[in-house]
């Protein structure tokens, strides 16, 4: 018995170390990245990095404002394109589709989720970019925000759909039955009872989708053009801003990390910090929004 207890203790220590390791890794990543970004922040200040448009490392300019705008714009565009489709499909799968159709649509969504990002990037390069280039606007190369946003929308759609579907399905049957008993149509039940009730799950789905969009790298490098410019309309029509080329925060890191050193490297870590902060802000605001609407509902 003594032996077994000793084994037990030994095992417990080993497992404790394993658990600690996950924290150690997270903390190391944080410390490393924040510490490496400090020289750039010290040299230029937060305003100098986040507020400047010019990124020309050879000349000592490290403004990442253009990349922030690029990332935010392409993410917003992807949401506009993808979220309605995703939620509609989620509702469809949860409430309307007959079993046979579910058996086709749900695996299709799952498969979309599994396709590697480079495959989407390749498809974007070979099919989407030439297609978008056909839009007759001077300076439209096909590479740019629109192509990137469409690719991104397809990539985040499965995540948002599956989690939203789970959220809708999780709403107690009693809610639906009560609503129908009161004379509401199925449609009214969905939009006025089920969706609000499943709100926290749907918001969680959106957060994950936004996180995925902000974090996508390779597919973006392949179709967005990587120009360090503030996206602007290509001619008098303000809508052509969506055809503008851009560079994302993620693309900035991936394209330059291998050879950057000194202040340049530090600026790339600063880009990583900004990216991380952006995702944190999204998470926190979403949770705040949920808490507030739950509070008011109660």
């Amino acid at each position: 018995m003594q032996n077994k207890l000793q084994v037990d203790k030994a095992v417990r220590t080993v497992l404790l170390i394993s658990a600690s390791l996950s924290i150690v890794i997270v903390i190391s990543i944080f410390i490393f990245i924040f510490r490496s970004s400090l020289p750039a922040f010290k040299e230029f200040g937060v305003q100098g990095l986040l507020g400047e448009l010019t990124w020309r490392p050879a000349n000592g300019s490290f403004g990442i404002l253009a990349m922030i705008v690029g990332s935010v714009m392409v993410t917003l565009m992807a949401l506009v394109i993808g979220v309605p489709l995703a939620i509609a499909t989620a509702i469809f799968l949860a409430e309307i589709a007959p079993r046979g159709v579910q058996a086709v649509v749900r695996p299709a969504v799952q498969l979309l989720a599994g396709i590697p990002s480079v495959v989407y990037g390749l498809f974007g390069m070979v099919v989407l970019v030439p297609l978008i280039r056909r839009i007759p606007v001077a300076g439209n190369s096909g590479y740019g925000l629109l192509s990137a946003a469409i690719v991104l929308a397809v990539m985040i759609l499965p995540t948002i759909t599956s989690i939203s579907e789970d959220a809708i399905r999780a709403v107690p049957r009693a809610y639906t039955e009560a609503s129908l008993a009161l004379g509401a149509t199925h449609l009214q039940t969905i939009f006025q009872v089920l969706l609000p009730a499943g709100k926290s799950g749907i918001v969680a789905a959106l957060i994950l989708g936004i996180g995925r969009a902000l974090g996508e790298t390779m597919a973006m490098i392949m179709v967005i053009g990587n120009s360090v410019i503030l996206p602007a309309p290509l001619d008098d029509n303000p809508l052509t801003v969506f055809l503008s080329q851009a560079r994302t925060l993620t693309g900035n890191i991936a394209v330059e990390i291998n050879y950057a050193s000194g202040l340049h490297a530090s600026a790339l870590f600063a880009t990583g910090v900004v990216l991380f902060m952006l995702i944190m802000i999204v998470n926190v605001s979403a949770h705040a929004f949920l808490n507030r609407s739950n509070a008011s509902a109660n």
Partner: protein
Amino acid sequence: MKPADLRASSASANLRKRQTTQKLSFGLLWLASLIVVLVLVVVVGYVFITGFKSLSWDFLTTAPKGGLSGEGGISTTIITTIYLVALILVIAAPLGIGAAIFMIEYQEQTKAGGKFLQALLQAANFGVETLAGIPSIIFGLFGYALFVSTLKFGFSLLSAALAGACLVLPTIIRTTQEALLTVPVSLREGSLALGATRWQTISKVVLPAAIPGIITGIMLSVGRIISETAVFYVTLGGSYRLPNSLLSGGRTLSLHLFYLAMDTNAFEKAMGTGAVLIVSIIIINLVIDLISRKLSAGVRQQQ
């Protein structure tokens, strides 16, 4: 007409209006789902049809003839991918499963163990949550700065495996946690009541019951590693040759696709590589589905 009749007819008019709105809206929902399925068909279809021309046994078993010529096959990239998956699992699976076991099975001991242990547990949970949300390029940045540059491992399997292990650790921990949680408490209590130690209970009772869920987590990680590019782009290097040691670099399938697409005009080979990737993911998804089905059957049995 009597007021009751008026109310009745306007009520049914209202109902008809709502039903029409519903028919239209549901039509839109059908359309949305149709679009989603169509997108899948177009993307996968295009990749398979264009890639089909380059798919052959030769393609799979010949090495690429050069990083830039786009000629040759993808054999070395397939093997490199397998090496990398194996390495990452060797590192991350024991760590992740061990961490999950500690966080779930030792909770009462931890609570009794005092403030430090409790804080550790909370920090561990926070760590897993945060790690899961970090974009992969940041793992790449971290991996490049620490493993490639500072520790001088260079662009190598080792650097890539370490960075990749950090990437999949949260997935393994989370899925293992969930698997452990589905094991009924009664099983543990019964074992302990029979005089088994905690570790005996875990190793002989809980873990076997949780294995399907754990394997699901591992398969999910495998899928993630195969699809992942950004992390390995900055840690593995771009050599098309087979790595002959842990400190050699190479290309995974995804990386090879990226280089083919960007550097060569060999779009058909790129699509072919994409087709191989998609097929691998389909197989992995099928395995996960099979395991989940066996899992829920098992749970139903226990109940």
